[in-house]
């Protein structure tokens, strides 16, 4: 993975001392609220319902074990012994003290971590495919490009006070595991007829109050122009995006209001006039250098047949292991290896519900040890709020599974109904209108039969506690949105969304249901699916074919 050099380290250290000074000036009243607000946000610091919340950046989701151990230590020392992974593949601390944040940032800087631009109206953490580099069908590994974008966007002097936040995602395969079409900019690595590598550029996707799927503004951008073109898009947005209304300030609104051709024209004009072929142009040497940080780990030559035979014995001998293998591991381009998804959706542990995406300090420490032992000392965070060990030997799977089971991180539910994306909701977040954890718990209690969940197949359930849509409810196969009705929490359900290569927004089923009825309503919906599905038809395909009507009738009947 990318190793910070002296320049990166200097930048992170300088940022810590800058923020320490800003915090001091704020606490002594020298720095006014309206100026401290955007400054603290750009250091990942929110003021939430109970306490500040600190969001720590994990660039494109990639963590080294020494960094994970540092996170564990920080949550022990400065917080309540756990962290929460987010859909931007960052990690949040819910209970830091404002005056201790500069110390936390200094601790993070010691392992080249930070909270830079994890919030605020600036360019946020670039995200990517959690299986980058291990995909057989990958055109190119997206991580070197993510790193180039990280360096360009970090402290870009021109784009720190944009009309609104700005998110970029990059993928290198046709399959989209990074929700690129609901990003401000989605970049798809493609090859042209000459075999040259470049990007298909999508702009103006986003969720929130006005969900929009991104539009292609350039089918092929030669890769050397990556930064100059991004610069041009950002400048057009910075100058033309609305600043009078925060709900209309995202680039998606600008693209929609100008229309794609007019927006594209502005970008191309800006690019051709100023930045194209200028000093932001990347060279072959630059790409070689960037790629040198993401070389393959030292894979062993594995006797595939022997390895398979051994695995088969283990799978046949243990149903739980077989389920986990089936649900939580993915294929790998190197024979004898698998990618392992670690479910952070443990559900009920000793009768107590674990919020999706939460990991304790002890779990982090053990995960770091396991990653050192089984996956080349590297961990990845996913947009579904899970973790990935990308390079595990097939022959190590059983031992890893046992070790994960011992710390309640081997629930075999990836891509099933209980592998939910859930925001912290009203319990923590001051923006939220409704609680989410109680509903997630209710769903976990109701749908506890694994064979039933496996029979339902792939269902992505996303639940947000308000229309800001942090949990991407619009693009879940099942989306749940918490709403406030006269002080009571109600839940609006939508069906048929997708954040994959077929990205689309779900259709709203009908009026919101009461909190205590959510799981029962899901049961009714799933019964319709099971009843009417065709052979091998996924839930999403069935909703597509049947439309919303049969589900609506089943749920609301004559009501």
């Amino acid at each position, binding site marked *: 993975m*990318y190793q*910070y*050099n002296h*320049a*990166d380290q*200097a*930048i992170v250290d*300088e*940022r810590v001392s*800058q923020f320490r*000074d*800003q915090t001091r000036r704020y606490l002594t009243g*020298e*720095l006014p609220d*309206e*100026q401290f607000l*955007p*400054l603290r946000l750009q250091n990942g610091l929110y003021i939430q319902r109970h306490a500040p919340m600190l969001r720590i950046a994990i660039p494109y989701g990639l963590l080294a074990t020494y960094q994970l151990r540092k996170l564990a230590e920080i949550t022990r020392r400065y917080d309540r012994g756990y962290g929460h992974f987010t859909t931007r593949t960052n990690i949040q601390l819910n209970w830091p003290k404002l005056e201790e944040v500069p110390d936390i940032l200094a601790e993070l800087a010691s392992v080249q971590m930070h909270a830079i631009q994890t919030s605020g*109206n600036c360019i946020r953490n670039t995200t990517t495919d959690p299986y980058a580099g291990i995909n057989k069908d990958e055109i190119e590994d997206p991580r070197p490009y993510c*790193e*180039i974008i990280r*360096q*360009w966007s*970090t*402290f*870009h*002097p*021109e*784009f*720190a*006070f*944009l*009309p609104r936040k700005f998110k970029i995602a990059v993928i290198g395969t046709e399959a989209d595991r990074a929700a690129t079409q609901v990003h401000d900019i989605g970049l798809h690595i493609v090859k042209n007829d000459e075999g040259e590598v470049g990007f298909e550029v999508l702009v103006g996707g986003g969720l929130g109050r006005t969900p929009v799927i991104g539009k292609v503004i350039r089918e092929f951008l030669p890769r050397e122009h990556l*930064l100059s073109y991004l*610069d041009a898009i950002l*400048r057009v947005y*910075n*100058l033309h995006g609305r*600043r009078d209304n925060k709900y209309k300030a995202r680039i998606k609104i600008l693209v929609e209001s100008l229309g794609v051709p007019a927006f594209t024209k502005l970008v191309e004009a*800006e690019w051709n006039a*100023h*930045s194209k072929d*200028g*000093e*932001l*142009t*990347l*060279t072959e040497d*630059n790409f070689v*250098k*960037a790629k040198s*940080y993401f070389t393959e780990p030292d894979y062993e030559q594995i006797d595939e047949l022997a390895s398979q035979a051994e695995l088969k014995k283990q799978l046949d001998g243990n149903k739980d292991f077989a389920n986990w293998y089936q649900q939580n591991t993915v294929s790998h381009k190197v024979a004898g290896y698998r990618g392992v998804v670690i479910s952070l959706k443990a559900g009920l542990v000793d009768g107590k519900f674990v919020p999706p995406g939460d990991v304790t300090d002890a779990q982090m420490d053990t995960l770091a040890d396991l990653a050192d032992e089984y996956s080349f000392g590297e961990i990845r965070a996913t947009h579904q709020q899970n973790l990935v060990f990308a390079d595990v030997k097939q022959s190590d799977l059983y031992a890893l599974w046992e070790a994960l089971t011992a710390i309640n991180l081997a629930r075999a539910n990836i891509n099933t109904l209980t592998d939910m994306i859930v925001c912290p909701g009203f319990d923590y977040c001051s923006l939220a209108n409704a609680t989410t954890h109680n509903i997630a718990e209710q769903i976990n209690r109701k749908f506890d039969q694994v064979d039933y969940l496996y029979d339902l197949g792939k269902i992505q359930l996303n639940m947000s506690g308000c229309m800001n849509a942090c949990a991407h409810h619009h693009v879940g196969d099942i989306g749940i949105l918490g709403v406030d009705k006269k002080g009571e929490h109600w839940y609006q359900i939508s069906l048929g969304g997708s954040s994959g290569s077929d990205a689309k927004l779900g259709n709203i089923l009908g009026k919101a249901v009461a909190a205590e009825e959510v799981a029962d309503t899901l049961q009714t919906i799933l019964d319709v699916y099971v009843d009417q599905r065709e052979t091998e038809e996924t839930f999403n395909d069935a909703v597509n074919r049947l439309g919303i009507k049969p589900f609506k009738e089943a749920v609301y009947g004559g009501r």
Partner: protein
Amino acid sequence: MVVVNRHSQVTEDNWTFVEVNNLPTDVPLPQICLSELLHLNERPDVLVPMTDALSQSGLVAETMSLINNHSSRIGVWCATDTSTETLDELLAASKNADSVLLGLDLVLIHVPAFADGRGFSLAMHLRQQGYEGEIRMSGDFGRDQLAYLTRSGVDTFVVAEQELKGDFMSSFDALESAQQGRAASNLPMFR
């Protein structure tokens, strides 16, 4: 109010705004009304609204030429809602021998609010277009933006004198190792 430059120095300054209706109420530099200007013996450096300075004909253009005859240097000011097209027009005029803007010395950008980041792009645009004169900023920017603003091409800042006490000037040095936003070769990995 004083003018501070990017090298953390308070500078001597003689620029004066010519009074106009749309002058923001909080502009901090001295102002002069047109009739006063016409009766002055010396010829001061004056700041006029950018849109007026770009007028090609009519009363506004005539007034501009009058101002030109009674001033040493002309600078222009604009707010952050100025378009890049207008800036391009301005730069074209600054190279036009027939324009009052020939050899333009100063562009002042007035920022209405701390979070309004358009000034960064306007300054960067001017620099990318080859403008070599002074870019000055006034209004509601904050000291924590000075480093980014200078990197975007701003030279001088109009600030209240009481702001300068303490370590105000150290803000110019914030994040000094960070990239300038202009060259790939300045990214950490390629240095």
